[in-house]
């Protein structure tokens, strides 16, 4: 499986993602540059976290116009796998590859802490193989992670099994007390209808190293990879 992690100006989780996919999991992983248009034949493109273009204007709003995003949209529309984490998720919603938008946290503060997320979708690769009855400990670190979409979109997400994760307790209970940012129905991540584009605010790459004593995130990557169908 070959991964390509894009570096936008201001990306700051790109090397962390490469470390997990390449060094820890042992997959061929290349670093893609935002000014290029060649995806180097990767099977999965990853848009990492960070503050692309300083998050100026609006998170992800400028990055979607980077030269490489034209190639990413084409790749996704042809069924290629795309994962966006945090700022990467924001770029994917701005690009129209994923439904909804990420608003400012309802506390109006940046929040960094461990949270639990419960896998919801049984048909999306990244959550399919996980235990759907409990929470996975995955950290968040964002100021604009408050997922929002219209009621019609929400109904579609549910009908198509596109909700990947919801903020929950360790035991997998979903409720307002464990909603860190005000996201609609505690949504932490969604996929597109075709289930080849995934976006999530929590950082699985920050929970994928035995040396940091939390490998819950590794389970997400393993599930995603197990369900990837490549030519």
């Amino acid at each position, binding site marked *: 499986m070959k991964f390509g992690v894009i570096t936008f*100006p201001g990306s700051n*989780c790109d090397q962390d993602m490469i470390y997990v996919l390449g060094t820890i999991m042992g997959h061929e992983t290349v670093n893609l540059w935002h000014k290029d248009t060649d995806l180097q034949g990767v099977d999965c493109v990853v848009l990492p976290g960070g*503050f692309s273009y*300083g998050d100026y204007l609006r998170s992800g709003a400028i990055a979607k116009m980077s030269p490489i995003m034209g190639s990413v949209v084409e790749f996704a529309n042809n069924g290629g796998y795309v994962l966006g984490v945090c700022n990467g998720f924001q770029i994917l919603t701005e690009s129209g590859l994923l439904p909804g938008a990420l608003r400012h946290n309802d506390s109006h503060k*940046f929040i960094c802490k461990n949270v639990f997320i419960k896998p919801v979708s049984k048909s999306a690769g990244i959550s399919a193989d996980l235990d759907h009855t409990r929470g996975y400990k995955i950290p968040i670190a964002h100021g604009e992670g408050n997922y929002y979409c219209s009621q019609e979109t929400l109904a579609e997400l549910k009908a198509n099994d596109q909700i990947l994760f919801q903020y929950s307790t360790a035991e997998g209970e979903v409720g307002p007390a464990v909603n860190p940012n005000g996201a609609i129905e505690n949504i932490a991540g969604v996929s597109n209808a075709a289930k080849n584009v995934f976006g999530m605010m929590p950082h699985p790459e920050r929970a994928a190293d035995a*040396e940091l*004593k939390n490998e819950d995130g590794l389970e997400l990557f393993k599930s995603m990879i197990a369900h990837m169908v490549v030519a």
Partner: protein
Amino acid sequence: MNSTAVATLDQAQEMGLRPEEFDKIKEILGRTPNYLELSVYGVMWSEHCSYKNSIVWLKKLPKKGPHMLVEAGEENAGLVDIGDGLACCFKIESHNHPSAVEPYQGAATGVGGINRDIFTMGARPIAQLNSLRFGKPTEDRTKWLVKGVSKGIGDYGNAFGIPIVGGEVYFDECYHQNPLVNAFSAGIVEVGKEISATSSGVGNPVFIVGSATGKDGIHGASFASKDLDEDSSEDIPSVQVGDPFQEKLLLEATMELATTDAVIGMQDMGAAGITCSSCEMSASGEHGMDIWLDKVPLRQNMEPWEILLSESQERMLIVVEKGKEQKVLDIFDKWDLECEEIGVVTQGGTVNYYWDGELVGSLPAESAVLGGGAPVYHREWSEPAYYQEYKKFHISTVEEPADLKAVATKMVALPNIASKRFIYEQYDSMVGTRNMGTNDPSDAGVVNIKGTDKALAMSVDCNSRFVNADPEVGCAMAVSEAARNITCSGGIPSAVTNCLNFGNPYNPEVYWQFVGSIKGMSAACEKFETPVTGGNVSFYNQTQIGDKIEPVFPTPTIGMIGVVEDKKFITTLSYKTKGDLIFMIGANREDISSSQYLVNIHGITNSSTPHFDLEEEYANQRQVQMLIREGVLNSAHDLSEGGLWVGLLEKGFASGLGFDITLPAEFRKDAVLFGEAASRILVTVSEENKDKFIDLMMLNGCDFDLMGHVTKGGIRVDDEDWGSVSDYQEIYDNALGAILSA
């Protein structure tokens, strides 16, 4: 102001120079300086840049250590050999005055400045700490400052992408007007790949890179070198404006630059901008420099002297080897950053500034810099009356409260004891996936050095109430506490950076605090073999309102790093298993001096430092280091604010487990529970390691005491039910946020 107009004594004094300093400038130049030249001396000879009132004493600090690659003052930051061909570059700096008038930008640019110091040396920053001090948290001004400072640190550091892995926040009314914002950063560089702040090679081009230059921060160094007063808000234009996005690009470009052979020297532009970098690099390399100010990329129309003095952020000056300019231009083009040739290295030691081909200023570089022509003063000091007065305090004058459990509950909610998560959850503590404390914290921040067996431990500490009570003892205690945090985490203390926050040095009693602190720091750093690699001095942390002068507590913040030679030695603070035995290494004492208990519960502020003995401290730490390497400890946690009681609870908060303890019968219970005598460490040991632990303890004769054992969650003190850990956790987690958001 016309840059080339002949300067006057009035102008010199407005810039903070003294009449005798103005005379000295005339003597150096052999003529009266023009306004631009005077401006250069004004900032270079400011306290902030010249250390003129502190350097005599700073030179007495221990500089040499077994692991030092670069000693204090030689470069932008100290450099310590950590093995595996790697070096750690680390430093702490203050941004107090800017934060007092514009907390958001003041704190943000403090973070930017300290990180630039690290990556200018070719080291990639991997972790940050900070030490913050504010007035009473119930005051509106404090709420405004905390909100601005924490958001400034967060917004800048989060976007820049370096985790904050630890720190401290103190509240005391002495910081009401003048908060302290001290930022620490540590980076890693391959030995031999570091970049120097120097200049050489006649004809080599000089480039300015990064952001365009604007009018922000002019006279920032001078603003930092005077007391705050009721008009200080007028100095807001002296506060710089930060852009973390530019800083991130500058970091990545610099890291690429460090892999080329094109760079002779590089210096960041912090205080005094182009002035400081051109003078210091030239003086360091014993060359001169011609700078063409009209070539500097600008954001707005500016006078030549304004360009020189601007403290616009995210800029660097680079001396490039002639013929290799294209390599540099290509890298900065890739990262969409400005990169403009603005000068050339010359023979001799003169720095010439030009505007449209006309010479607008000329001076010997060496005459402007610290260690060269900058003034050096020996200040007088005198012992303040309070010092002896405080020593008279005796515990017998304080009545022991009848209901200790009620006091214990109050203690957990005190602003200096309660969790600071309301503040630190705004900081990205995990980016870089190196923070080893996220899921199992230690006393110090512990940072993974990926691909090696090693980790780095780091801590910032200063109990300034202790330093105020007795500067010499209190500062030795600050060094010891930092070392204790590193020791408890499994590290061996390696080196120190300091941030010396004091009042006005022309006040003999303030200077007495400064001298005492240096003496105490020297003694402790000698003992721990932790040389002081650098840092900064921030005087004038006092506010004059009307006739009343309020200096802050003397606050020599200690930033320390330690090497964990093998990750298997990393020791965390939480209880691990029900039934484990809880031992205290170090002695229980009947001592409540300067404790949070005495100050907040009894309202008594005039007491001296609690018990401290440097030899005992060192022996206890050596003992813990040995116990960790022998593998007999399940946890270790140092006792500090709130004493034994808070230490026991903190070990529970991190695990959900509780404790059952018996207090020694020969002392007052309040003193044992809440006293803050130094050099004490709480450890837990499993039943099967108990004998080995005791055998090892008997080898060296350190005091130790069996306090009790770990429970499932309940708390028992002397067989009395004190509730459960979760009861106190609720208070501990939410007390500070409730006060600050009220």
